[in-house]
């Protein structure tokens, strides 16, 4: 009984303490006088916890590497770069609140994007309302570019549908006898993974290559035996997987278990992962994959990036890190061209400049159409020996495409 009587007192006490604390906290960091010595504050919200925490942390490292490398060289316009990173917990409501806070109350000078389509779309809308330039590292699905954003730029070579463009061109240019005649497609029911496979499918079908299997599987599929059986029974010349990671690995193993030997096998995402070769027991021979980034790519700033990133983090950068870094490079180019970095009219100046110009980055030269869609295609890599090498396009290749591929 006693505790019941006491409860209201405890509540009242708690409430008043909270009020006092809130009052104290109020008058903290207000006011932000701009001067040329102030750092350029870049506001970012990233999924550091939750579903996208792994890639989110990767992108964060990319941003941090960009800030450090740029600051070590004297900063941008003579000002140091300061990153202000919030954690959106992979939550779309949270990401909106984060960017409103960053732009509205924290008065950051620039904002750059979070990770994944699901979070890029709502946050780009906030940036648009405030008239901010919004360069983003990871929103490759078609819906990002259907929203009518005028401030958005995707800092990567290509959207999902265009990943395989170099491969499609190469295959369709082969003489009639060598061209693969039949293809099987298996794609995850996911806008990105499906986009890669269907982008290639559309181009090959237009070029007269027949589709014999077209399977879509839900993201939670764990057993690929039956899909593999369907593909193996149709005996196509080529198999294309619109995969993320585990599904790609499981499907390849299931195909190998059925002893199906295609002339060409192309899978998105999975083959470029560092765990891939180990996961499928090194039976990687000849597998193709589009990639937005390679440590070996011959672009001028890439060598510096790989070197300094490795020194800073003790490991080589992967695609997520490179995407974050590329985003930084694009913003930096816009800042330098506009000669300013603050909210207001300066943002529109940078947006206009990016729409009209090409930027050299670690993933190659980037340019955009009016919706912010990049105009390039991905490099194509192939497992040759025990290493994954760039084979297409011709001007970036490390070795020749092996076709038909050896048995896996």
């Amino acid at each position, binding site marked *: 009984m006693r505790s019941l009587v006491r409860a209201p007192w405890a509540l009242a006490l708690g409430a008043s303490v909270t009020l006092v604390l809130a009052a104290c906290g109020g008058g903290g960091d207000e006011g932000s006088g701009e001067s040329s010595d102030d750092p350029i504050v870049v506001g970012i919200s990233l999924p550091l916890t939750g579903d996208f*925490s*792994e890639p989110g942390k990767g992108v964060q490292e990319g941003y941090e590497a960009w800030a450090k490398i740029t600051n070590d060289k004297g900063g941008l316009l003579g000002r140091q770069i300061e990153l202000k990173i919030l954690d959106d917990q992979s939550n779309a409501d949270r990401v909106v609140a984060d960017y409103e806070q960053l732009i509205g109350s924290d008065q950051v000078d620039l904002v750059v994007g979070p990770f994944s389509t699901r979070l890029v779309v709502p946050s780009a809308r906030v940036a648009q309302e405030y008239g901010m330039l919004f360069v983003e590292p990871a929103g490759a699905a078609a819906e990002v570019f259907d929203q009518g954003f005028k401030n958005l730029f995707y800092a990567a070579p290509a959207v999902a549908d265009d990943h395989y463009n170099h491969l499609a061109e190469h295959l369709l240019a082969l003489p009639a006898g060598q061209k693969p005649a039949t293809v099987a497609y298996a794609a995850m029911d996911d806008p990105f993974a499906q986009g890669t496979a269907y982008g290639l499918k559309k181009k090959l079908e237009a070029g007269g290559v027949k589709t014999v299997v077209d399977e*879509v599987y839900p993201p939670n599929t764990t057993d690929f035996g039956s*899909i593999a059986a*369907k593909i193996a*029974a149709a005996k196509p010349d080529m198999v294309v997987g619109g995969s993320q990671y585990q599904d790609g690995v*499981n499907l390849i193993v299931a195909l190998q278990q*059925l002893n199906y030997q295609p002339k060409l096998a192309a899978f998105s995402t999975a083959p470029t992962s560092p*765990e891939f070769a*180990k996961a499928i027991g090194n039976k990687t021979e000849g597998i193709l994959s589009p990639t937005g980034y390679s440590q070996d790519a011959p672009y001028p700033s890439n060598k510096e990036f790989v070197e300094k990133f490795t020194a800073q983090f003790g490991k080589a950068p992967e695609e997520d890190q490179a995407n974050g870094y590329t985003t930084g490079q694009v913003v930096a180019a816009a800042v330098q061209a506009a000669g300013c970095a603050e909210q207001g009219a300066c943002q529109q100046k940078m947006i206009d400049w990016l729409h009209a110009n090409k930027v050299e980055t670690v993933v190659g030269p980037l340019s955009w159409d009016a919706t912010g869609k990049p105009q390039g295609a991905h490099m194509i890599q192939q497992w040759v020996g025990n290493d994954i090498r760039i084979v297409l396009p011709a001007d970036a290749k490390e070795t020749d495409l092996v076709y038909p591929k050896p048995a896996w």
Partner: protein
Amino acid sequence: MPSGALLVQSIILGLLLGGLYALLAAGLTLYFGIMRVVMIAHSAFLILAAYLAWWTNSRLGVDPLLSMVVTVPLFFGAGVLLQRGLLSRLRPATLTMMSVLITFAIALIIEGLLGYAFSGTQRRIQLGYGTAGFELFGARVAVVKLIAFALAAVSLAGLYVLMKRTQFGWALRATIQHRDAARLVGIDTERTAGFGFGLGLATAAVGGTALSLDTTIYPSLHWHWIGPLMAIIVVGGLGSVPGAAAAALLLGLAQSLLQIPMGATWAQTVFYVALFATLAVRPQGFFGGRLAQRF
């Protein structure tokens, strides 16, 4: 029209898959039989066992099957402790309901700890015989799938013999059938239930190891498994191990064959269609178990 070879291949894949389902579902139906406990954490324990098998293989370099020497007794002990320390303390009137909440919490804890210990990176055991196989009636049988099936067959047969031929098995079945009557004839039902629960969790150790041979694992994988497994034990008749095994084989086969005309997305709804049909037409399940009638 699917070719004959594809049909044979799909039937073989379906049976192998069904065997694995049977093993994974066996523990789940036992818990319910013994204690009316809905054990949401069963599949989390499966993934935990799979991780231990992967760890054994990648760190110690030995065959993942050897991990069972440790995990089976370990899981048995954990099951007894879980039952004695946690589940037996729930009030009988709300046992089924509260067990869902408690085991849900346990599943979350296991998932969190796995993520903490092994990170969210997706893992796969690398086996020399991972893609090996042989021809049978013009279809190919993968060795790893056959091992998983054999593990399922051996453990389910062992479970069956244990339940039918040993004194402990009789006591366990008596406890399942009528707890008060079992107590009247002198069975220590509390202890029996604890061991029964341990037995269920021990099957999770075997099942998880079997699963790890041919699957890429990650901490949240267990959510994909719990739904189909729950459907299997309801269709099979709650509390009936042979029922669960029959339902698992049938549903595994149906899933595999339906994938030919319908594709993967619709084929996996077979579990839930079967679940609805069972609840609507024959709530006590199709293959045994009179238990569900009483609820």
